[in-house]
């Protein structure tokens, strides 16, 4: 199992930008403990949501052939809480991309409200770390992850 922190993509411009949405719900059990009587989405998970949005954008830019790993959180500024019932809009943009790595910027909004600004760096790990060997299969872009793209942005066979 893998925790997925975005629900679907609503915009996808290959190798440029993408927008995903995340609907926060009290059915997510961790919100009951974070915090009792005051449920808010943990900021680390908000970052993970952006990492998934931007990471898939970066992965698609190289046709999912690279293993894309979150390597650095360049900036993470939070302006407001995220509560159950909120619909988040996660917008990510590729600033730079090379064979070895990519740098992205992103904002998260809820309606007109700015929730967070999150800038990240991703490493294409097969191209880094002095030729260290990793498993052959792409453990980053598994089927679950790719399913996020089906039907929403990339048309499936059924169209």
């Amino acid at each position: 199992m893998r925790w997925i922190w975005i629900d679907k993509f609503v915009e996808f411009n290959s190798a440029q930008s993408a927008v995903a949405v995340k609907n926060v719900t009290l059915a997510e059990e961790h919100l009951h403990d974070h915090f009792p009587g005051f449920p808010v989405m943990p900021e680390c998970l908000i970052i993970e949501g952006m990492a998934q949005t931007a990471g898939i954008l970066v992965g698609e830019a190289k046709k999912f052939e690279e293993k894309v790993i979150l390597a650095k959180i360049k900036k993470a500024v939070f302006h407001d809480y995220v509560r159950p019932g909120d619909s988040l809009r996660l917008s990510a943009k590729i600033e730079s991309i090379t064979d070895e790595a990519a740098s992205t910027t992103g904002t998260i909004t809820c309606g007109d409200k700015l929730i967070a600004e999150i800038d990240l760096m991703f490493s294409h790990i097969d191209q880094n770390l002095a030729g260290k060997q990793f498993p052959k299969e792409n453990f980053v872009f598994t089927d679950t992850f790719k399913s996020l793209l089906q039907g929403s942005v990339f048309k499936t066979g059924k169209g």
Partner: protein
Amino acid sequence: MAMTISREQVLEQVRTVMVDALGVDDNEVKPEATLMGDLGAESIDFLDIVFRLEKTFGIKIPREELFPAETLMNNPEFVSNGKLTEKGLNELKAKMPHTDISEFAKNPDIGKLPDLFTVGMIVNFVESRLKAA
């Protein structure tokens, strides 16, 4: 149009890049500060720095040109017993014309290679690029 920009201005902008990329204070970013030893840079930070320099100065920087150490150290022809060979030193000199490696060459221990990567070296590199543009 060729950009005319003084060394002081280049240093100022490189300082901003370092402060943003490494989360250090401006006064720590002195020309003699080493990126890894003094400023705590890790490998991914080098790529971050390259991306930021490209944006700031509007130049293209292949990573191995600014930071050739990695490719050098992975080649057995260039490294032997933890030291750069004659061939390795020549390669380093060729790859880093903007840096004086004479002091390092006296005892070319690869453990000391990171000390060559200083703020001043980045400023030299950017200056040489801006002149060539």
